[in-house]
């Protein structure tokens, strides 16, 4: 049977919980508020350090990447003096170190800089695009979780039964088919053929919640399905593992019926590895958004990143990579906190 490798689920099992492993041995078992505070503090420090490294890396990569933004803006007919005038206007003639420090200094003051191509503040651009990418990703996560959890548990509850087999087929297909292709099929079927949805584009939230959600639903499903397939498998194997545990047998032997055992004993324990995978998937949702946004022509952060890279809008690329990195780190942090909430043993340890 396919599923996550035994080694992986083993590592994530409650006995050897990753959260407790993170802390120095003597700290285990302290009260929850202090524990949470320490966790948040250490994560904040790692967030800042990681972002600094990311900022340096992206800056250096863009330095060696061929391509002069001024030449791209002015095309092949531009004269040398015109190019020089634009480079000066954009500040590209300043030394690299100075440009790096100015960038970081600006960010610390809340100024993301001005886009080279759009000639407007990057913060405004990013805020506009977040209005698309964030709802899209959240919707996809909702859909993915809402599909995967019931399917995975149902499949595990009757191993090798018809539901299990159907789930297996779904997850195999979902893992194999890339989201942009699902997107294209959806457009063909639901937009071109049935005419139920727009074939792409985004009317903006000003057009009302209905039209905006209508524009986001197909892409969100296309984004969600492959991840739902992965999550279904993880849920199924995690549930199976807990079903086989001693305490479940004990519960059944004590006369607890099958449904209650599943609800009260199996699922809460199985959720821990599932949460880990969900956390990892969040970064895939942001990454996948680049492809799906292009197929559905959604003005999101992914499209902005792609466009900025083509135009060598260095200011925008740098900021977006930093924002994506920050998001992934923040999401991982939330997942870690999520463990504490899902696992009552951690809360009661005081």
């Amino acid at each position, binding site marked *: 049977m396919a599923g996550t490798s035994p080694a992986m689920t083993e590592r994530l099992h409650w006995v050897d919980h990753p959260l407790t492993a993170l802390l120095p041995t003597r700290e285990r078992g302290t009260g929850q508020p202090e524990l949470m505070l320490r966790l948040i503090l250490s994560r904040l420090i790692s967030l800042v350090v990681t972002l600094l490294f990311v900022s340096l890396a992206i800056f250096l990569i863009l330095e060696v990447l061929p*391509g002069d933004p001024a030449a791209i803006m002015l095309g092949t007919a531009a004269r040398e003096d015109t190019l020089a005038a634009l480079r000066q206007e954009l500040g590209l003639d300043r030394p690299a170190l100075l440009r790096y420090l100015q960038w970081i200094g600006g960010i610390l003051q809340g100024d993301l800089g001005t886009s080279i191509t759009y000639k407007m503040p990057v913060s405004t651009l990013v805020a506009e695009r977040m209005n698309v990418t964030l709802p899209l990703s959240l919707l996809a996560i909702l859909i993915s979780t809402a599909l995967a959890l019931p399917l995975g548990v149902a499949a595990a509850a009757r191993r090798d039964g018809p539901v299990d087999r159907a789930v297996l087929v779904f997850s195999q297909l979902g893992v194999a088919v890339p989201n942009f292709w699902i997107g294209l099929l959806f457009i063909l079927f639901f937009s071109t053929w049935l*005419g139920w949805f727009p074939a792409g584009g985004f009317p903006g939230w000003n057009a009302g919640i209905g039209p905006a959600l209508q524009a986001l639903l197909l892409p969100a499903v296309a984004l969600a399905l492959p991840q739902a397939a992965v999550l279904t498998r993880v849920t199924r194997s995690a549930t199976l593992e807990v079903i086989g545990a001693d305490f479940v047998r004990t519960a059944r032997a004590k006369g607890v019926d099958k449904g209650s055992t599943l609800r009260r004993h199996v699922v809460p324990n199985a959720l821990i590895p599932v949460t880990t995978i969900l956390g990892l998937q969040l970064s895939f949702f942001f990454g996948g958004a680049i492809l799906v946004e292009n197929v559905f022509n959604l003005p999101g952060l992914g499209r902005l990143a792609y466009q900025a890279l083509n135009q060598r809008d260095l200011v925008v690329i740098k900021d977006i990579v930093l924002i994506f990195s920050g998001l992934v780190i923040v999401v991982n942090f939330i997942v870690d906190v999520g463990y504490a909430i899902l696992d009552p043993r951690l809360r009661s340890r005081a």
Partner: protein
Amino acid sequence: MTKRLLTAALLLSVSVIPAFAAKTSLVVGMPIEPPGLDPTVAAPVAIREVTLANLYEGLVRIDRNGKVQPLLAKSWEVSPDGLTYTFRLQDGVKFHDGTAFDSADVKFAFDRARDPKSTNAQKQIFAPIDTIETPDPATVVIKLKNPSGNFLTYLGWGDAVIVAPETAASNAANPVGTGPFKFKSWTRGDRVELTKNPDYWQKDKVKLDTVTFRFISDAQAQVAALRAGDVDAFPNLGAPELFAEFQKDSRFKAVAGNTEGETVAGMNNAKKPFDDVRVRRALMHAIDRKTLIEGAYSGFGTPIGSFFSPNHPAYVDMTGAVPYDVEKAKALLKEAGHGNGLSITIKAPQMAYASRSAELISAMLAEVGVELKIVPTEFPAKWIEEVFKNKDYDVTIVSHTEPLDIDIFARDSYYFNYKNDTFKQLIADAAKTTDEKARFEKYAQAQKILAEDVPALFLFQLPKLGVWNAKVKGLWENSPIPVNDVTEVSWTE
């Protein structure tokens, strides 16, 4: 199951289609979003395709046949020596912010464009200007340092539109011009919306109330948007392989016209073996343009034998000068000392037409014993850096989309590394010739020189594959300059 029901309920609640009224709105699809809305500070074609003729107007306009027509200037006189242009301006013209248009705005716009700090992408078109005088609000007198035969044509380009001193600096984000439409909004990454200008000086011509430009980069998504009716017109469809289907579909009008884009495989003329005209001619003889166009652009696109647009009245068909002839190619290569074969590279950008052409050219050259290795080169960033700036290449392929740009072969620093004094002199003479007939004659000679000297492999004119709703009238079939002029576009119902 509950989830499915919820989804179904959501579908039903949101798929209400608004009722149709008589149509006065138009949605135009474009493959690339403009990086700003000021054509006087940056080169991208997409800026002109949204703004020129719709938001901004020049002293003159270029019509759908490539001819110069009056616009903000209702008439003009050129002195016999070709040095003094006197323009009489239209009365009652207002900018979108309500300020009146007069000769001071013309002077401001041109002075701004030729300022040392200006980032106008076509600054050389203003280079001949000596002085700009404004004897009265309705007259502009421009004196040139030397005659400029194409001066009037240039004034119809996006780089020479008239902007107002009060608003010029913010035009990239909030454009203010004198055109038939006003800027309404720009949802970056998705669309630009324009509304009718109620104070337009020739408002009787304008039939549309709103025009929306939507940006859809993926070719499949473009087709889907047209079929789903999300977009009424795609003046330049990116999917040639699906164009024929639109031609068969009576709901659409599908027209294959010409752009100003000469697709050429430029050679590094300073580098061996391309410094030898026999080698260049041999490579040209080895290319079957018909097959190339079939493979690279589904058969759409006019074969060219030199570097001039078939849209232009001075165009001469030179495809017969160095025709497809494998035997002749082999003989010439042997004569040049490459009888045992030749191994060269082509830096090919990622655009479908370029990478497909490179593959076909590679196969065709293999027939005459030349091995052509394809080096994928990202456009524009890497291509501009390596090929255009550093001239580090053997052969490359790209479409040159500027109108009337044959003079690039006369520029010393241009990436072809081509030096031909006779040609250079001819282009310089043509630029100074104000008499149209004499100038066109010189352009004809120049086309002939290039066709025979083959500084680049002349392949085909990039087609303009326009698809629009069959009820839409007035869109251009060719694009003699990059523009989507919707001033007189209307719906037939």
